[in-house]
């Protein structure tokens, strides 16, 4: 009750301020008048009565103050006054305030950007309900422990797995490439078949229509032919058509009714390969399922691992082919791969923006201290008329908070732009569902950061300035020729700024040098004007081996006949610089040798044109010819790394090797060449080319005719005369001319562009761009800090310089006098920076392994810093050199 009454009176006092003020004034005036009247009634002369009642009562203004403190609003009222006064004084020093606010805006903006990036990508990247409990059910093959794999379950296994104690809900899915028929060119559509609990599992409502639901798979009748579209597919195929629901989409010559469109952020299963459409799963549509698991709340990953292990061991007995020979379960939260990939990058970037923020704060401290010197007089007066030290500190802190909050406002705007930059530069490393937005946590972060920085840069100047020596300042007036109390603090701050800037510059220099090295990397092949086109083959297109081999060759020749096309090669599993579908090495034997260790090499299924298309030179022997290719002869071409490892004398050609994974498994599409013993003849050696990503040296490689195994998917590597993607349409037309239903994947890769999506390439580019950006900002901020201290020092010493001039000092004496301290500050900053950089070296080498730091780069950066420091100090130095003694002495 009392609390409520308090609120009402506070509310009135704050909101109806003028009314309350007027009320008090009226009431008190009434009091004075009534008292006067009473005195007159008692016989006091009117004039005297008026005087006495006023004296007895005191000033009405004072009473108002007392009123506010009576109801507990005194401090608030005072702070309000501080804020108004602070804003006025900031406005009076426009230039200083602007520089301070901008310094902070850059620091806070960059830090907020990194925070919102981390928030959006590592803290809350997924839109799914309870995303933190969803896990990838990966198993680790004991033979290849680096690469977790997934496992498939039969419907019966899936049903029994559902009852595991650790599992809350489980989603089953499978992916397939379908063909959108009924338009000009057959188009590839990747479909995700999901169990009918998908909507509740994800907890994301459809943007249009509905998601998949249990009634789509009736227990007794046939499943409905319905489809839910992914956002990107909808945008691409039916741009913004909201009347799409109920229409028909023809997939593999079968009609599906469109019942819904998912929202943009829903991109399941981007982690395993995106899907264009979602179709209810039934055993008739797919014989097995991959699980996606939502654990029960509180169940740890290890508990789940242990429980699933026993399930999977049982499943392996039923379907041995779905599991590796020996394995252990290793479920991982869906976020984990991303943390692994970018956690370090983000930490490093966050560290660098914190440095930037510190530099920005130091800048503000410098400016406030420098300005504070000229405010000594004002503060001395305040203190002389009774302001307590607490009030002066509070007033100065309010001013710095005002600066910090204005900085934060601009910073949040900057951060929105800046936070999206890494997403653009590293498109594949972040979760696709992540969306950068300015949300409540981000705003709280930046406001909190602003208050913290306000305190950080405002406290030191406030404490220092709040103890004015009243007598001294009142006597000597505004200008003092005495020693400057803030000078030491100023120089330390500036030296610190220089040191931190140097660290950022060195890191940026090393990152750029590393990036340049990557772009000049010897690839061993020529990606210029080459594209890779993925082509799905229908399993039943051509049944037996020779016909299928001929069909693929037909596709190849039809593409080769396009006018712009120079070379076309077939590659099953190799798009340089990676081989994406079998990223692990497989064991092989060399005839007549029995090594102690298992030998491993990458196996590449290609056509003989592969080497010409990629301009990989043949060093020794020969390549296989078309006839051998069609038959799938047991020949092999090896790369130089392999040749030198086993036949260092250069006599590799003529030897034999075999690999168990290339053994004829009896399937109708495996090669059954007449001479297909197990052993393959080495017929040639080619030069090395990068085949294990950019960050690794070429692996030993064995190239064999692609006809050894013909999978359901091939790639054509196509070298053209000009930009290759321009010919993509022609390629699709050429494929269709062979078979009207033959489609290609919707996207072709330019091999030169593919390089830019390599993790090493894109990460180092990100580091180079962002570090260079941050380092430039840091440099700009430090130079502002540096030059404002020099400006301040010169203006404070004007009269001293004038006296020196009058006594006969030369210009260079004067310049040196001013320069001396500044040079010492800058040089000590550089020295500290270089030492810190040396200390950080190991850490940085570990975190950005591709960066290169050489003494030459260090020297260059140091020179750059010194040169820009000199440039920044020139204007105030010039002013010092041009001091007119008569002028300064007169005004002194």
């Amino acid at each position, binding site marked *: 009750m009392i609390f409520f*009454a308090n609120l*009402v009176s506070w509310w009135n006092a704050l909101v109806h301020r003028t009314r309350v003020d007027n009320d008090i004034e*009226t*009431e008190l005036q*009434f009091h004075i*008048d*009534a008292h006067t009247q009473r005195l007159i009634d008692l016989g006091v002369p009117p004039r005297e009565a008026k005087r006495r009642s006023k004296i007895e009562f005191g000033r009405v203004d004072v009473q108002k103050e*007392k*009123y506010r403190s*009576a109801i507990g609003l005194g401090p608030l009222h005072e702070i309000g006054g501080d804020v108004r006064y602070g804003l006025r004084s900031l406005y009076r020093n426009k230039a200083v305030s602007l520089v301070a606010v901008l310094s902070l805006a850059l620091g806070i903006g960059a830090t907020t950007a990194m925070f919102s990036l981390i928030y959006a990508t590592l803290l809350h990247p997924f839109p799914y309900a309870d995303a933190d409990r969803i896990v990838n059910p990966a198993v680790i093959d004991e033979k290849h422990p680096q690469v977790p794999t997934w496992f498939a379950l039969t419907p019966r296994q899936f049903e029994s797995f559902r009852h595991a104690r650790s599992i809350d809900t489980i989603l089953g899915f499978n992916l397939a490439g379908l063909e959108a028929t009924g338009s000009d060119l057959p188009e590839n559509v990747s479909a995700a078949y999901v169990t009918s609990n998908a909507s509740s599992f994800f907890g994301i409502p459809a943007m249009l229509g509905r998601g998949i639901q249990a009634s789509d798979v009736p227990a007794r009748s046939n499943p409905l032919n319905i489809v839910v579209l992914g956002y990107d597919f909808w945008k691409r195929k039916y741009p913004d058509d909201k009347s799409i629901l109920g229409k028909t989409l023809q997939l593999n010559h079968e009609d599906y009714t469109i019942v819904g469109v998912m929202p943009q952020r829903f991109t399941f299963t981007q982690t395993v390969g995106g899907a264009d459409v979602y179709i209810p799963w039934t055993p008739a549509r797919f014989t097995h399922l991959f699980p996606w698991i939502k654990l029960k709340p509180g169940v740890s990953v290890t508990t789940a691992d242990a429980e699933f292990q026993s399930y999977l061991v049982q499943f392996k007995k039923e379907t041995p082919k779905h599991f590796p020979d020996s394995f252990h379960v290793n479920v991982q939260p869906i976020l984990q791969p991303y943390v692994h990939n970018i956690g370090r990058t983000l930490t490093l970037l966050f560290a660098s923006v914190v440095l930037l923020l510190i530099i920005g704060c130091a800048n503000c401290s410098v400016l406030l201290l420098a300005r504070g010197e000229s405010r000594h007089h004002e503060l001395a007066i305040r203190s002389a008329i009774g302001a307590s030290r607490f009030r002066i500190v509070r007033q100065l802190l309010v001013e710095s908070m005002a600066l910090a909050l204005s900085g934060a406002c601009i910073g949040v705007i900057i951060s929105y732009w800046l936070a999206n930059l890494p997403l653009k530069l590293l498109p594949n490393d972040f979760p696709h569902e992540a969306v950068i937005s300015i949300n409540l946590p981000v705003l709280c972060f930046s406001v909190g950061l602003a208050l913290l920085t306000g305190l950080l840069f405002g406290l030191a100047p406030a404490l220092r300035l709040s103890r004015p020596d009243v007598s001294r300042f009142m006597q000597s007036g505004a200008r003092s020729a005495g020693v400057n109390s803030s000078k030491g603090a100023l120089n330390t701050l500036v030296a610190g700024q220089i040191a931190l800037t140097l660290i950022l510059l060195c890191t940026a220099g090393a990152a750029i040098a590393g990036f340049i090295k990557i772009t000049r990397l010897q690839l061993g092949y020529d990606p210029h004007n080459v594209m890779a086109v993925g082509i799905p083959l229908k399993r039943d297109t051509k049944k037996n081996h020779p016909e299928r081999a001929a069909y693929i060759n037909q596709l190849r020749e039809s593409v080769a006949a396009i006018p712009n096309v120079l070379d076309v090669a077939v590659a099953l599993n190799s798009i340089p610089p990676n081989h994406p579908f079998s990223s692990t090495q497989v064991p092989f034997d060399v005839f007549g040798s029995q090594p102690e260790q298992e030998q491993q090499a990458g196996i590449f299924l290609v056509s003989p044109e592969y080497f010409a298309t990629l301009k990989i030179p043949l060093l020794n022997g020969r390549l296989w010819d078309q006839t051998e290719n069609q038959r799938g002869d047991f020949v092999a071409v090896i790369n130089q790394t392999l040749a030198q490892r086993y036949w260092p004398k250069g006599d590799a050609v003529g030897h034999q090797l075999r690999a168990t994974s290339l053994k004829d498994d009896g399937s109708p599409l495996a090669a059954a060449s007449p001479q297909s013993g197990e052993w393959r003849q080495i017929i040639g050696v080619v030069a090395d080319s990068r085949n294990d990503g950019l960050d690794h040296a070429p692996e030993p490689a064995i190239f064999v005719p692609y006809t050894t195994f013909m999978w359901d998917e091939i790639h054509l590597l196509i070298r053209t005369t000009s930009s290759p993607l321009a010919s993509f349409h022609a390629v699709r037309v050429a494929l269709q001319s062979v078979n009207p239903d033959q489609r290609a994947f919707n996207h072709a890769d330019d091999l030169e562009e593919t390089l830019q999506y390599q993790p090493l390439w894109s990460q180092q580019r990100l580091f180079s761009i962002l570090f260079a950006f941050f380092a430039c900002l840091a440099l700009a901020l430090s130079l502002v800090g540096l030059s404002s201290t020099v400006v301040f020092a010169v203006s404070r010493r004007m009269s001293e310089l004038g006296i020196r001039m009058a006594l006969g000092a030369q210009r260079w004496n004067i310049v040196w006098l001013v320069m001396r301290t500044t040079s010492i500050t800058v040089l000590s900053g550089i020295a500290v920076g270089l030492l810190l950089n040396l200390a950080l070296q190991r850490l940085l080498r570990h975190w950005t392994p591709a960066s290169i730091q050489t003494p030459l780069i260090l020297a260059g950066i140091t020179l750059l810093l010194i040169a820009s420091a000199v440039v920044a100090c020139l204007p105030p130095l010039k002013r010092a050199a041009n001091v007119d003694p008569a002028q300064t002495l007169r005004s002194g």
Partner: protein
Amino acid sequence: MDKQVELLQGTLEILILKAVSLGPLHGYGILLRIQQISGDRLQIPQGSFYIALYRIEHKGWLKGEWGESENNRRAKFYRLTPAGSRQLKAQTEKWSQMTGVVDGILSATPEKI
């Protein structure tokens, strides 16, 4: 005129509440009424009087309303709220207990102990 006494600390609030409980009054009226009841023996500092008045209003024990004074001027009249009358009762009890105890102690003689 009798010798004036100084106001004991903390008693102003209860005096204001009591004065208002006898009928709604404006600020000056409250002051006059207290002085009048005390037989002009109580000296109330005018500055602290209003602070106390506002604090009581802030606590919700008094409610101020604008009205016309006896000589037709706008004045703020205070009246007791239910919370205020409860408070007056509680404080009055406390006061009499206190005075009882203090009286007892002050009237003690060596024989009584």
